[in-house]
C-alpha cells in the first residue's frame, strides 16, 4: 500500500507539514517495504484549487492513504472521489506518523476537518 505524508522539506525526520494542498513536498512510502521518496507537490503554488490538484497528484501516483493535518472541503471531497483514505495527525515526523499509521492509531476522517482555503 502506498502512503503519502505532507512535508515541508521532504525529510523523514523533521516535523511534517499539516497543510495538505499547499505543502511543499509529499513523502511517498511503501507501507510494506518502508521504501520512501519525496516528490515536490505541484499544487504548492497553485493560484487556486490546491487541494483538488494535490489529490489528483496523489491519485496519479497510486496512493491509497494520505496523512496530513487538516483536510479542507475541496481536498476531502477530491480524496474521497479518488478512493484515497484521509488520515489526520497533529504533530510528529513523517517517520513517526508512518509508524502510527501502520499501528492503526491514526484517525481516519470521514468529513472535511479544515476551513475552506482559497
Amino acid at each position, binding site marked *: 500500500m502506498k502512503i503519502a505524508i505532507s512535508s515541508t522539506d521532504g525529510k523523514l525526520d523533521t516535523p511534517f507539514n499539516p497543510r495538505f494542498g499547499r505543502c511543499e513536498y509529499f513523502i511517498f512510502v511503501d507501507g510494506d517495504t518502508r521504501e520512501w521518496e519525496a516528490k515536490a507537490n505541484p499544487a504548492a503554488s497553485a493560484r*487556486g*484549487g490546491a487541494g*483538488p490538484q494535490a*489529490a*489528483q497528484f496523489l491519485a496519479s501516483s497510486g496512493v491509497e492513504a494520505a496523512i496530513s493535518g487538516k483536510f479542507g472541503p*475541496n481536498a476531502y471531497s*477530491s480524496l474521497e*472521489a479518488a478512493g484515497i483514505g484521509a488520515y489526520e495527525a497533529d504533530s510528529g515526523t513523517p517517520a513517526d506518523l508512518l509508524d502510527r499509521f501502520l499501528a492503526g492509531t491514526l484517525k481516519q476522517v470521514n468529513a472535511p476537518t479544515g476551513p475552506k482555503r*482559497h
Partner: protein
Amino acid sequence: MIIAVASGKGGTGKTTVATGLALSLAETGQPVACLDCDVEAPNAHIFLNPTFEHRETVNQLIPAVDPDLCDGCGKCADVCQFHAIVVLGGKTLVFPELCHGCGSCTLVCPQKAIREVPKAQGILEGGPAASGGRTAAGIDFAQGLLNVGEPMAVPVISQLKKWRGLSDTDIVILDAPPGASCPVVESMRGADFALLVTEPTPFGLHDLRLAVELAREIDIPAGVIVNRDGIGDAGVDDYCREAGVPILMRIPMDRQIAEALARGESLVDAFPEYRDQFRDLHDRIVEQIVRQRVGS
C-alpha cells in the same frame, strides 16, 4: 460623458469627490448618474441617501454535471485553466468558487453532460438619490455589492456599468475601487476621463504614479485632485509637473472636513462653497477631454 474617479491608494477621498461632483452637477439640472464600483466596500450611498427601487442579482454560470450522461473522459478538466472541474476515480467534481464562468467545459463535453446553472456572486441595487433631506434631482444612483467569500469583483462591476436606464446624454460618475489591478481596470475601461484623487504624502505619490500609468495603459486622459492639501510634502506637485498631469482641484486638510465626512455629510452639504469648485472642475475636465481629442 463618463468620469471615473480613481486612485491607487485607498482612503484618499474618491467617494468625497465623486459624490461632491455628482451633487453639484445635478443641482444645475443636468442628468447625472453615479455608480459605486467599489463593490468590495461601497460607501457613496452614505452621502447620496438613495432610495433603492431596483435590485438585481449578479450571477455567474457554473457547470453542473449529469452523472448519467458523464463517462468520465476528463476533457472538461483538460480545458479548465482554473482547476474548477476535475475527474477523480471516474467521478467529475466541480469546485464552484474556483470557476470563472467561461463555459469552456460545457462547450467541449462530447456527451453533452454539462449544463450551466447560475450562482449568485453579488447584487446590484439602485434608485434616485436624495441628500441632506433635499432631493438632489437628477442623480440616478446604483451600487454593486460583492458577496463575502467571492473572489471576483470584476463581473459585478461590469454588470453595474450596464445599469438600466443610463443614456448617452448623462454625465456618469464612477466611484472606482482602490488599487491598480483588474477591478480598477474594469471600472475605468470605456471612461472618457480618469479623475485621480491623491494626498500629498509619499504613500499618495507612490500610488498616484501607478494610477497615472494605468490611465495611460487604458488610454484615457487623466487629471489630479489633491486632497488633504498641506499635510505632507511637495512630492505630488513635483511629480504632476514632470509627468504633465494637470492638478484640477485642491481640497485642504481641515479637521472640520474630516469630521463632517466621518458623520456622513457630503462635502458640498457641509461646505456649500465647494459646489462652485466642483462645477469649475467639471468644466476643466471637459476642456481636458476636448484638448486630448484635438491633440490626437
